[in-house]
């Protein structure tokens, strides 16, 4: 008797029992269930929610692996143990075993805590409420470690995950019912509950926090943080030791400090292209968000060019940043590709997606520039637009309703 039959017998045994959802979650992880169609269409397409979520996870894996190397690279670089990358994306300074070890040591626990705590909450809710364990957390659990600083304490992450899953999702009824993106809810909770661990120049490089105030202190400022302080931190070519610490290529490839998985615009771009190709992610949202960000960037560049503000202004640094640089610095690319496209919290109509995405891009850069205390605008922009997505849909759908009413009027007139 094979595993398949054994599990089938167990499934029958658990049927109707309290623990059935928990067992089924494990069972359906191993085997596509033997469920057949009962009403309506007798055949169904191959895709289910697990496959959809799995596709998103696959597109995130390159970012995770890169994040591990980058954690070590930033650490060793700040300590002065290695040289900065010298030969493009495949630089040996970056892809070294030493770097990976630091990354594995620091980031795997984040992943384990994120999945462990989050899925535990999901299982508990499924058992209490008697519904199946839903797949939504598979993606959230992967996103969370990628959008926090590398040294985030594990207990903090655990608390945030519990908050995010319960308040962000389960109170609304679970996957598919939530209003705010759960992963961003978790990050926003961390951000407002423990701000010292989520911003500043000490949290982005492994080891910086514990060394703060000691003679060995290291720091690693994100490009956004630097720009917000008016430093010219990014340029065509970087020069070590000067203020210009990073080149545009560094930012594009991702050899910069930042949240674990958000730094490599290149890999995010590849992940985004994979999501678009597999028809899982909405290209409308991604494209329109990029357009929105470019539009806002151009407006700010225009203000600077028109001479409306001078370089004494505290907004000058970010406003004068070349408009397209906004796409590759900070978490903008990651947010747009992986978080804004969450189908549950985004606009649900195709027209609505254009508006929703554009506003996310537009507002992200707006927040970035005008709120130097929180230079990462994309998180707040997405959360804000999550709230407005149903409103956007409402007006899009009303357009269709009006068309129908007009047809009726023409007919009766």
């Amino acid at each position, binding site marked *: 008797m094979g595993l*398949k039959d054994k*599990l*089938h017998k167990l499934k029958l045994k658990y049927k109707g029992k309290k623990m059935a959802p928990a067992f089924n979650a494990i069972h*359906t*992880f*191993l*085997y*596509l*269930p*033997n*469920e*057949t*169609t*009962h*009403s*309506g*269409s*007798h*055949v*169904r*397409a*191959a*895709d*289910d*929610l*697990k*496959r*959809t979520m*799995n*596709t998103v996870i696959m597109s995130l894996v390159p970012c995770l692996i890169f994040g591990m190397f980058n954690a070590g690279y930033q650490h060793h670089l700040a300590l002065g143990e290695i040289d900065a990358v010298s030969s493009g994306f495949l630089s040996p300074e970056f892809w070294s075993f030493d770097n990976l070890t630091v990354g594995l040591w620091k980031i795997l626990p984040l992943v384990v805590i994120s999945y462990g705590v989050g899925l535990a909450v999901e299982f508990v809710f499924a058992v209490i409420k008697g519904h*199946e364990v*839903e*797949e*939504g957390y598979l993606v959230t659990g992967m996103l969370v470690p990628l959008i926090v600083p590398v040294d985030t304490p594990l207990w903090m992450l655990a608390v945030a995950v519990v908050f995010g899953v319960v308040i962000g999702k389960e109170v609304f*009824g*679970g*996957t*598919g*019912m939530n209003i705010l993106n759960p992963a961003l809810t978790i990050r926003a909770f961390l951000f407002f509950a423990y701000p010292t661990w989520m911003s500043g120049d000490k949290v982005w490089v492994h080891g910086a926090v514990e060394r703060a105030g000691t003679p060995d202190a290291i720091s690693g400022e994100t490009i956004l943080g630097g720009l917000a302080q008016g430093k010219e931190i990014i340029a065509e070519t970087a020069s070590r030791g000067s203020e210009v610490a990073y080149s545009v290529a560094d930012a594009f490839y991702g050899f910069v400090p930042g949240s674990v998985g958000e730094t490599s615009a290149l890999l995010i771009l590849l992940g985004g292209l994979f999501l678009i*190709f*597999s*028809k*899982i992610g*909405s290209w409308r949202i991604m494209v329109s968000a990029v357009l929105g960000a470019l539009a806002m960037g151009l407006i700010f560049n225009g203000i600077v060019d028109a001479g409306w503000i001078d370089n004494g202004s505290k907004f000058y640094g970010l406003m004068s940043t070349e408009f397209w640089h906004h796409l590759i610095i900070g978490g903008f690319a990651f947010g747009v590709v992986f978080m804004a496209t969450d*189908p549950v919290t*985004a606009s*649900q*109509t*195709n027209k609505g*997606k254009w508006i929703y995405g554009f506003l996310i891009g537009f507002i992200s850069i707006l927040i970035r520039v005008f709120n130097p205390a929180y230079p990462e605008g994309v998180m707040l922009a997405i959360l804000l637009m999550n709230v407005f997505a149903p409103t956007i*849909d409402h007006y899009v*759908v009303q357009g*269709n*309703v009006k*068309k*129908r*009413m007009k*047809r*009726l009027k023409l*007919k009766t007139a």
Partner: protein
Amino acid sequence: MSKDIRIRKGLDIKLVGEAEKTTVEATRSNVFAIKPDDFHGIIPKVIAKQGTEVKAGEPLFHSKSNEKMLFPSPVSGEIVEIVRGAKRKILAFKILADKEQQYVDFGAKDVNAMSGEEIKAHLLSSGCWPFVKQRPYDVIANPDVAPKAIFISGYATAPLSTDKDYVLAGKENELQAAVTALSKLTEGQVHISVGKNSNSPLTGLNNSTLHKVSGPHPAGNASVQIAKIDPINKGEVVWVVSPQDLVVIGELFLTGKFNAERTIALAGASVKNARYYKTKIGAEVSSVVYHSGVHDEANIRVISGDVLTGENVRPDGHLGYYHDSITVIPEGDDYEFFGWNKPIFNKISPSRALTFSWLFPNKKYNLNTNTNGEHRAFVVTGSYENVFPLDIYPLQLLKACMVNDLDAMEQLGMYEVAPEDFALTEFVCVSKQPHQQIIREGLDLMLKEIG
């Protein structure tokens, strides 16, 4: 006047087991069954009690709400059983067919000389009225309300469905008589649609407007054609008749007989000899299925109708009243190891999430009845719109139905749809929601509350 209709959104589901274009006589079916459930929303009142002898065309029951609406026996014979279910609900009338069929003589008529009222009365009394269905609500037409137009779709796009051009060949006279009769029941026009390159006998009919349709499924669905030709507004009614039913109606006028004969396609991957059969409404499906033979008899689903909208009738079931095909496909009652994440080559998928049906657009698939996943809340958006050509927001309409929001249903276009229009959205649904059932229940609620 001809108008071309071209549909872009949709999906042709290509399955193995298409019926070969040869027609054979089915084994004679002993028992025929008429299931009142086939006539959605009709509550039957028995006319012919158990044990009585009926002729073909003699009424078995009438509608509780309209006793003029008669439902006839397809054959002559003895009513051997009236099958009842819970609360004594009538599930089926079973008629043991005579060897020599006898028909009620309704008298041959000259349709050109008849008035609309006479035609309507004749259709009702002969039991041909149930063939006329109406939109909104997708139920048997209310004879007291005149439709603004009548639609006949001669273009079948559903997977493995009957080729209408083939089964209608040679029926020009019957079709013409029926179309002429129907044209007197409406102020508007009788719209007939056929495939773009069709040589259907429907093309040359008088008293009608011809439309040429092209595009993927659901281009052949009446709702899609109605939306393109003359969309339904609130308060308007259109009628829909399927072409093989027209033949029965036409024959009634020409010969005075109610002849329930139709040519059906026997198709599907589990069938050994997929081809066309001549049989009658209500016949035992086994008379067709076992005449052809099936693969892996223990593991089949026998569907009266096509795979998207048909009814699971089991091998001992009967051909449905409105169906013109029988499809037999393998059941999918089995587990698949890591079926949710491994690359899939043998199933159809609208996405490319490690599913590779996009690489082989012309490959024919052998799909079974597995749902390929569990029921979930709606998560993915935008996938339904790609297979849904109507100017309606499918997800929003489904949600309105689920929360019984009558206002929203009305505003979002509920009057324009039938459950069959949601077969494709149901097929591609990642959350495996029962779309057709949701829409059916929504329509029922509207019919009850708004009427």
